């Protein structure tokens, strides 16, 4: 399919006589500098997902100085617009293009087939090609540390969780946090609210308030704004965590720690690989160990012993000694999932669509 499309494309361009300039229409111009492009789904000022990717881009610029030029386009809707932006970048001479939203998956594959010499990196997807890598972060590792702190510190034994959409990524986080909260506190209960939006600070604030009113004294969030932390601060006596970025302006309390998306090391390594000519298509799913997931400073609001345990948990995950999904674990319906000592395979984790035993409520379908 893609092959025929590509052949047709060159054919049509010639037929229309548009290749008259002599240069092949779709050839990339090459300059000395390595050019790295970034396609963002939100504005760089969203303070969350896109913001962190842009921090990664800036780190690349800083690391390589004049050897690298970076370009980006923000607010690119998924679908045909994304495809067009990628083509524009590739023909303008980009050597490496990071496409940073799940919905860019098919557009990335389509464009990559037309530009075999350009390397593509698609975040959070699963389709690869010779010149397309995928990369994602194991946020659930951070969730385990979060769950541990949350379970240890809750006094009402109710933990509120604000989810965006019921997708594997979010469900994985809920499960991981729940397992580790339950370990230190068998009485713990999770109240889950789905916001059904990626971004609506006012709604996130409302959701946090509702959870607090219903007795939660720890708020976990899988949405990117600081609204829930502000609500926690206003209510008083509530703790929460930074999400995506450190949100240290709410430290030491209510923000007692955070999960940080740190794309910089990966972006720098992949850019280096392109410069060295050693880039290969790969499937990267990194966690705390390689530094793609960062745990922000645990503040003094957390008791010393809990902090020590949390850091120990973090280290054992980082070293690979411990996997957050280690059996025995059952699914919500009571059926067996993992036997004693067994760890979850990446395939199951990637497409996780069930709650573990003990969580209440259904995943919306």
């Amino acid at each position, binding site marked *: 399919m893609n092959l025929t499309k590509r052949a047709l494309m060159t054919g049509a361009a010639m037929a229309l006589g548009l290749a008259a300039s002599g240069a092949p229409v779709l050839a990339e111009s090459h300059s000395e500098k390595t050019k790295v492009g970034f396609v963002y789904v939100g*504005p760089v*000022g969203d303070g969350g997902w896109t913001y962190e990717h842009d921090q990664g881009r800036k780190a690349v610029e800083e690391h390589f100085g004049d050897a690298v030029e970076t370009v980006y386009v923000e607010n690119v809707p998924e679908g045909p617009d994304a495809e067009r932006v990628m083509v524009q970048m590739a023909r303008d001479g980009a050597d490496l293009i990071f496409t940073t939203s799940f919905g860019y998956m098919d557009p990335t594959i389509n464009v990559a087939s037309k530009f075999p010499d350009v390397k593509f990196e698609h975040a959070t997807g699963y389709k690869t090609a010779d010149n397309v890598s995928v990369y994602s972060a194991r946020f659930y590792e951070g969730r385990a540390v979060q769950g541990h702190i949350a379970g240890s510190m809750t006094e009402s034994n109710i933990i509120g969780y604000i989810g965006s959409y019921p997708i594997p990524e979010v469900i994985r986080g809920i499960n991981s946090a729940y397992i580790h909260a339950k370990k230190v506190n068998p009485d713990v209960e999770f109240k889950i609210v789905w916001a059904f939006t990626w*971004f609506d600070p006012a709604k996130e604030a409302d959701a946090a308030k509702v959870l607090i009113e219903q007795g939660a004294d720890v708020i976990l969030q899988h949405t990117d704004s600081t*609204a829930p932390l*502000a609500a926690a601060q206003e209510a008083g006596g509530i703790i929460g965590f930074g999400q995506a970025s450190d949100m240290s302006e709410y430290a030491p309390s209510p923000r007692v720690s955070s999960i940080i998306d740190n794309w910089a090391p990966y972006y720098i390594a992949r850019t280096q690989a392109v410069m060295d000519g050693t880039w290969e298509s790969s499937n990267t799913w990194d966690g705390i160990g390689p530094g793609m997931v960062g745990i922000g400073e645990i503040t003094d609001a957390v008791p010393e012993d809990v902090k020590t345990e949390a850091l120990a948990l973090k280290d054992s995950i980082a070293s690979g000694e411990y996997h957050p999904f280690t059996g025995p674990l059952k699914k919500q319906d009571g059926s067996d999932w993992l036997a004693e000592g067994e760890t979850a395979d990446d395939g199951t984790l990637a497409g996780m669509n069930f709650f573990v035993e003990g969580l209440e409520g259904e995943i919306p379908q």
Partner: protein
Amino acid sequence: MDLSAINPVLLIASLMVAATAVMIAAIGELIVERAGVLNLGVEGMMITGAICGFAAAVQTGSPTIGFVAAALGGAALSLLFAFLTQFALANQVASGLALTLFGLGLSALLGQGYQGIKPPSTPRIDIPVLSDLPWVGRILFGHDLMVYFGLALVAAVWAFLKYTRAGLVLRAVGENHDAAHALGYKVIRIRVMAIAFGGACAGLGGAYISLIRVPQWTEGMTAGIGWIALALVVFASWKPWRVLLGAYLFGGVTVLQLNLQAAGIAIPVEYLSMSPYIITIVVLVIMSADKSRAPASLGRIFHATH
């Protein structure tokens, strides 16, 4: 499932907060529409107010100055609309939409460098005895000042339209601008003032979101609330107290659906999320039995022929 987890007192208290921003913006738009002008740019003016207020509050450390700046910012942007529609006689629907587009871009440019900053906090009034009263204490006396400001504004607008001469003139202009002109009223001047008032209110509503409800600045943070404000005015059939009712109803349904979710009620979430909009439509149908109608000159272009 645990319905007892829902505390009605807290529910009412938080719906009052959830309703404030949209209410302030809607009451401003109500004045604009009563003057016979339809400004669809509320979202753009709100987001501009949100960043103007946020930036001013951060720079000066005073939320009060922030709110003043937000009102000025919203009003300034609305004057652009006033120029287009009142002097250049442009179509109001298109001008309003253009204003929203422009405002979203402008606010994003102004907001560069304000991400991840915490604004100065606005104190919440706390009257020692009253706030501790059972039930009513939390509902009536436990909010930030802007909640009361919003209520006062609704009352003021109601009194203005009903009892003052200026209110009468404003309504006359909205009902029949040619007749009002013939009577010697300055139609354009009155409308420009109404538009600026609407802009200021939208700006205040936006700043309520960026300074109190969410406290932070992110691009596009009003996330469609301006459109809801427009809907509220129609919902209220251009009557101030019904704006209040509508805002509380809308805020109430939103907060209630989150409450039901947290309580683990097994209703599909996406249908719960739709419910505020569907209920608005249903209520609208019920209220349509009331034959009050839009200002007769709404959206029509006025040009003095002599």
